[in-house]
């Protein structure tokens, strides 16, 4: 497989590129640098490190990351294709409520999970269809569906949290999984598997290359005979399946469907993708980067709390880290100025 086609390093000027320069090294390990810096930050004080750098805490952080991370995987596809989806938070709420309702209606957990995933896909199809049919920018369409999906969630839940009997779904994102040889929650493994699949799709399949092509130059893609509209609907639908799955896991995590939950989750998810090297103008983004982006943010929240920083210090630090992480990323592959 061609390695130069990696979506995370597409704009390197070709000719005068030294074979393994510092910049190339940076671009490979860049996302890890952010992770390392954050980890170091919280490991300076011994009394904090003592609780921070422990397997237990690691387990907690990765479990906390799962939902954002799966959302970020879907969002990576969308962002690489030059789109954006603001409805993620609402879709998480909608699908988690759906799973809860199915379970409450004595369906099997499988059916409930499948229902959440399917509904996520349906919302994705709606998003994609509106974007392509009305020629309205994704930002606006998904701002609209943000409201619509949220309304639908509240309606389904009759304005109330939907409780459901405990099933194995609740174990999916439990901090201490059963069986315990899993070490981390099944949801974490699921995320990793999904990440690998997504990365392979992006690199090795025609679909993946076409997603990059659309994000890179939509007109050129259309003129090259790609069925851009069709593909876009497909991309939003695919990402929607991820969001639906994340919603199912969100249900598992809370043991209930919360119609008002996950507000603002879209910003977290988008931030994860962009911290990981995704470009909102399309064509760029990396699966690994997005995962690490999600992890960095969870780690920041976790560490801030352990160190005992107030809420406002946390707000400020996370804001700074987002900017710095992306600024570092821009240094890695600086584009020629106009």
């Amino acid at each position, binding site marked *: 497989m061609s390695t130069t086609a990696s979506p995370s390093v597409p704009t390197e000027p070709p000719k005068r590129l030294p074979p393994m320069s510092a910049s190339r090294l940076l671009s490979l390990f860049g996302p890890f640098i952010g992770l390392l810096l954050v980890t170091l930050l919280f490991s300076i004080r011994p009394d904090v490190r003592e609780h921070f750098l422990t397997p237990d805490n690691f387990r907690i952080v990765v479990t906390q990351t799962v939902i954002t991370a799966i959302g970020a995987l879907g969002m990576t596809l969308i962002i690489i294709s030059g789109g954006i989806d603001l409805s993620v938070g609402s879709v998480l709420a909608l699908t988690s409520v759906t799973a809860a309702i199915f379970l409450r209606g004595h369906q099997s957990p499988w059916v409930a999970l499948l229902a959440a995933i399917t509904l996520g896909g349906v919302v994705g199809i709606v998003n994609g269809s509106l974007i392509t049919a009305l020629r309205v920018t994704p930002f606006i369409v998904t701002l609209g569906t943000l409201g619509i999906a949220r309304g639908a969630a509240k309606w389904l839940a009759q304005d109330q949290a939907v409780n459901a009997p405990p099933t194995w779904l609740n174990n999916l994102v439990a901090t201490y999984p059963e069986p315990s040889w899993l070490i981390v929650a099944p949801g974490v493994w699921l995320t990793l598997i999904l990440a690998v699949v997504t990365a392979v799709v992006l690199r090795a399949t025609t679909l993946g290359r076409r997603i990059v092509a659309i994000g890179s130059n939509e007109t050129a893609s259309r003129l090259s005979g790609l069925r851009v509209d069709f593909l876009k609907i497909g991309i939003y639908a695919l990402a929607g399946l991820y969001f639906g799955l994340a919603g199912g896991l969100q249900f598992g995590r809370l043991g*209930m469907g919360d119609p008002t939950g996950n507000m603002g989750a879209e910003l977290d998810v988008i931030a994860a993708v962009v911290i990981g090297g995704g470009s909102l103008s399309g064509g760029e983004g990396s699966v690994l980067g997005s995962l690490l982006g999600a992890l960095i943010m969870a780690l920041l929240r976790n560490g801030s709390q352990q160190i005992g920083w*107030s*809420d406002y210090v946390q707000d400020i630090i996370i804001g700074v880290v987002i900017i710095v992480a992306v600024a570092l990323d821009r240094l890695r592959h600086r584009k020629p100025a106009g």
Partner: protein
Amino acid sequence: NHTTETGPSTGSAMPSVAPAGKSLRIAVIPKGTTHEYWKSIHAGAIKAQQELAAKGTAVEILWKGPAREDDRNAQIDVVQTFLSQKVDGIVLAPLDSQALVSPVADAAKQKVPVVIIDSALNSTDYTSFVATDNKKGGLLAGQQLAKVLGGKGKVIMIRYQQGSASTEQREAGFLDAMKAVPGITLVSADQFAGPTVDTAYKSSQNVLSRFGSQTNGIFMPNESSTRGMLLALKDAGLLGKVKFVGFDSSTDLVTALKANQLQGLVVQNPFKMGYLSLLTAVSAVKGEKFEKSIDTGVTLVTPENMNTPEIQTLLNPPIDQYLK
């Protein structure tokens, strides 16, 4: 910054649990941090801490809440992180009766006692429950409104937010009280005030614009919504003309009560809640005896009774004395 308060460590009476020189670490997790209500709880907990210190038990309070009062995920994260920090005990005001069940179960597995405060949890894994009877609070508010209305009239209630258990109970209690009075009709009870004073203000304006002219009485289920409604009433020139009962207290609301713009406020005793919950948690950690369930009581404050000394302490909890 008053994130962590460490009492003077004067050695410990129970070295088996808290070895000499090492204080007990108790996490206190509110639903939010901005409302005065939570500050009172914090202050109450500090009072307990100081008393315990005087008796020779050093306690460190780890005070941390989620950024938003509706962010269940964030509160779960907070609990889990404290567990990984190996705190000795937890005092928790659960944002949700269901969502916090599993982290509390985790705590039980790790033998960390959890005292639930303020709102109920659908679980048996906790150690003790220290809270207000919110339904009773709503009922009190309804009875007061019915009384000042003389048993008849048209009434508005604007709800707080979806999925907030404590306010839902207040609302339910209020509705029960209204049902008991045949002369009263509810003209609007299905709109929401939203999380902030600003959202409550807009919502109140919009509802008053339609029903204001025919309304005789209003109930709002918490502090921010009561404040928003006061602003909207002022706008519409209805202050004092419409009977109004609110919930929870703050400086502004007390002023309004004094001016007879409010005919009643149902207040809880968060200071006591904070105080008792910390004592209970410490007792549980040390293996001493403690109450399984404590009701900290709700009180109806009216313009008439507001100057009595008991009510005054309720309205002005000694926050400043404990929180610098």
